[in-house]
């Protein structure tokens, strides 16, 4: 014991030993190698714990933290022994040295025991690779969860539904994202209690809703029901809510889970549909138009009162009959034709005027509008609307007749106006002109020499004769227009043509003309004198305006076209430039060809004769290879 006390009291004393330099034989090199190596080991053994401490402080949440401290202490202790070894070359504190070694030994063994104790735990630790794999798996699971959540959210958004879960024990309520959207909830607002949830139910229905949930809990059964909702933004919605009551093993209700779907639009559409159905029914029942549904066989399926009134049957009597039974036989074919087109998808609907028999056997005129309703691509039934137009029909007939008369009168008037205009022109140019000349001539004759005066007088006579001639022409045309002294008769065309060629035989022989005929219509109902005049003028024109050096050919045809008789007279003569003369061809005293002594009367007269008897005459010519006159009677 005294040794120990002595050891402690003289712990730092060095008197009992010489410094190491003087103990044994140290070469300078050997000594300093010893000293420097020990100092390097000491400095290294002090740096390592510093690094360990620093490492621990930076990397928080380190496991084995005590072990790190033990390592640090043990290394530091080792370092200290090396330091004291180096110092003992000058300061041989061997007692302190021994004490430090003891401390080092104790710390080392404590570390060893601690490590042994940790060994089983250490063996249970995973390798870094295993850790990484686990982390990756977790990440993947998280991603999948996120994806699933997102899918759920999308499904909720698209399906306009949300999910809620009400834990009965804790009283907490969880709403899914979709549910929050249905309630128009802002992000900041949380709904976690039933009371907050019930706030979305209108005041009047809140208690009822609460009681309903109580009932579900009591019965362990959730009944699907509709909810009226006022959202956070004040929008009114209708939810269809389904759910179930979750029970534990003791059959105690512990949870209610459920989904709500926003069916506002669906409900609204349904209401609109209801409304339009009601409107249609009203329209159908009380319309003044006859309305009916008719099946594909033509049987009346449904009729309104108006139709019954129209036909004089009761509803029951109507339903025993068919559409066709009651239709006037003359209208069945047309109606069936439309029906066929409906069935073949050629038309969507049709309108026709048709006759039906009433119960009393009288005929009623109706305007029928019908269409076909399809169901699953099969014809289902016809909808028909009938309006009684018997009265209209009568008025319409009368009006049509009057319109026809008016049109005819109008036409006549037009014709007369044209003629008066033409006469006005003739009087201006062909009578007033020469008359003015006569006056001027008389004025001047007094101033003339005898010889000149004689010439002038001859001219005056000529002009006067021209006036008389014009007056005669006019008289003739006016008589034509007044239709005086003409009688219509059946004129054999062949005879008429023969009479004209007889009169013109000299000219025909001279011109060496060939006349061919193709007369499908042999007899024409027309005033004979006029017809002779027409042919005489057309033929003499053809001969007069023949093309030199081209044998004259004239073709005369007659045929029926529609309800008209068409007569054509075509030649291969010089033709006429219609671009230039079109307006003037049939006018009085219009002369287009030089060197022919035309009076400009023929075609004017022909046109008057044809038109006075209700016909029309037209000219066609290309200006070089001939002329064709077409008369329509």
């Amino acid at each position, binding site marked *: 014991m005294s040794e120990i006390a002595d050891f402690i009291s003289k712990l730092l004393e060095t008197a009992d030993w010489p410094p190491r330099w003087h103990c044994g034989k140290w070469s300078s090199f050997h000594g300093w190698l010893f000293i420097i190596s020990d100092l390097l080991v000491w400095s290294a053994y002090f740096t390592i714990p510093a690094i360990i401490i620093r490492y621990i402080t930076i990397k928080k949440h380190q496991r084995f933290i005590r072990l790190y401290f033990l390592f640090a202490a043990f290394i530091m202790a080792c370092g200290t022994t090396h330091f004291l070894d180096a110092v003992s070359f000058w300061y041989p504190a061997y007692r302190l040295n021994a004490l430090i070694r003891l401390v080092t030994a104790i710390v080392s063994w404590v570390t060893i025991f601690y490590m042994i104790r940790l060994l089983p735990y250490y063996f249970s630790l995973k390798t870094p690779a295993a850790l990484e794999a686990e982390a990756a798996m977790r990440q993947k699971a998280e991603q999948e969860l996120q994806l699933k959540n997102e899918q759920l959210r999308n499904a909720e958004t698209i399906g306009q539904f949300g999910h809620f879960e009400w834990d009965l024990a804790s009283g907490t309520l969880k709403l899914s994202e979709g549910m929050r959207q249905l309630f128009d909830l802002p992000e900041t607002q949380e709904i976690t209690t039933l009371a907050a949830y019930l706030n979305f139910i209108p005041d009047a229905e809140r208690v009822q809703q609460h009681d309903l949930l109580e009932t579900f809990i009591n019965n362990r059964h959730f009944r699907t029901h509709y909810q009226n909702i006022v959202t956070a933004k004040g929008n009114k919605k209708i939810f269809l809510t389904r759910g179930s009551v979750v029970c534990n093993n003791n059959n105690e209700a512990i949870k209610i889970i459920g989904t709500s779907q926003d069916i506002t639009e669906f409900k609204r559409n349904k209401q609109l549909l209801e409304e339009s159905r009601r409107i249609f029914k009203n329209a159908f029942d009380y319309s003044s138009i006859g309305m009916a549904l008719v099946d594909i066989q033509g049987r009346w399926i449904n009729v309104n009162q108006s139709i019954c009134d129209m036909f004089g049957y009761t509803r029951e009597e109507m339903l025993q009959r068919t559409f066709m039974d009651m239709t006037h036989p003359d209208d069945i074919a047309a109606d069936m034709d439309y029906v066929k087109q409906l069935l073949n998808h050629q038309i969507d609907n049709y309108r026709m005027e048709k006759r039906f028999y009433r119960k009393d056997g009288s005929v009623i005129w109706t305007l029928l509008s019908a269409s076909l309703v399809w169901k699953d691509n099969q014809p289902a039934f016809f909808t028909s609307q009938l309006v009684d137009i018997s009265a209209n029909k009568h008025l319409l007939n009368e009006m049509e007749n009057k319109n026809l008369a008016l049109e005819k009168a109008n036409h006549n008037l037009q014709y007369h106006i044209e003629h008066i205009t033409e006469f*006005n*022109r003739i009087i*201006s*140019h*062909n009578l*007033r*002109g*020469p008359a*003015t*000349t006569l*006056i*001027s*001539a008389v004025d*001047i004759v007094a*101033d*003339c020499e005898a010889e*000149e005066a004689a*010439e*002038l007088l001859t*001219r*005056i006579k*000529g*002009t006067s004769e021209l006036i008389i001639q014009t007056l005669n022409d006019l008289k003739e045309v006016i008589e034509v227009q007044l239709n005086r002294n003409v009688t219509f008769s059946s004129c054999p065309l062949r005879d008429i043509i023969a009479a004209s060629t007889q009169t013109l035989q000299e000219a025909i022989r001279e011109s060496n003309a060939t006349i061919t005929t193709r007369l499908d219509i042999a007899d024409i109902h027309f005033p004979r004198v006029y017809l002779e005049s027409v042919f005489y003028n057309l033929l003499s024109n053809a001969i007069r305006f023949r093309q030199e050096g081209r044998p004259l050919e004239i073709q005369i045809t007659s045929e029926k076209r529609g309800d008209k008789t068409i007569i054509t007279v075509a030649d291969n003569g010089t033709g006429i430039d219609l671009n*230039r003369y079109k307006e003037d061809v049939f006018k009085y*005293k*219009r*002369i*287009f*060809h*030089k060197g022919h002594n035309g009076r*400009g009367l023929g075609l004017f007269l022909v046109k008057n004769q044809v038109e006075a008897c209700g016909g029309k005459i037209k000219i066609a010519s290309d200006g070089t290879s001939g002329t064709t006159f077409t008369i329509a009677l």
Partner: protein
Amino acid sequence: MEKSLRFAIIDDDQVYQLILKKTFEKSQPAHSLMQFYNGEEAIDFLKANTSNPVQSLPEILLLDINMPFMNGWQFLEALENLPIAGSYKPVIHIISSSPATEDIEMAGQYKRVSSYIVKPVTKEVLTGIISKAC
């Protein structure tokens, strides 16, 4: 001193031509007069004389409407299509026996027509035409 004007009558009425010529010789001896019996003759003349300086062509035309082959309106259109139409701008008076409004309106549509005169053409009318041209 009054300058000498070149007149042309285009009219198919031979008696009227004769009378107008007489009236002209008596009352307006200073001026010359050409006579054509329809529009085509006048146009043929103008065509044949296109190489002459425009100054030698008639300066005043007295144009009838109703004529065979080429009437007054057709003459006006043919005149417009002549190669010399750009430089040859005679004063044209329509001389017609017709006081019909439709003819007067028609004449108004031709820019070259300066007046519409209803026959007869007296000394006074001629004097009026000449004094306007000088």
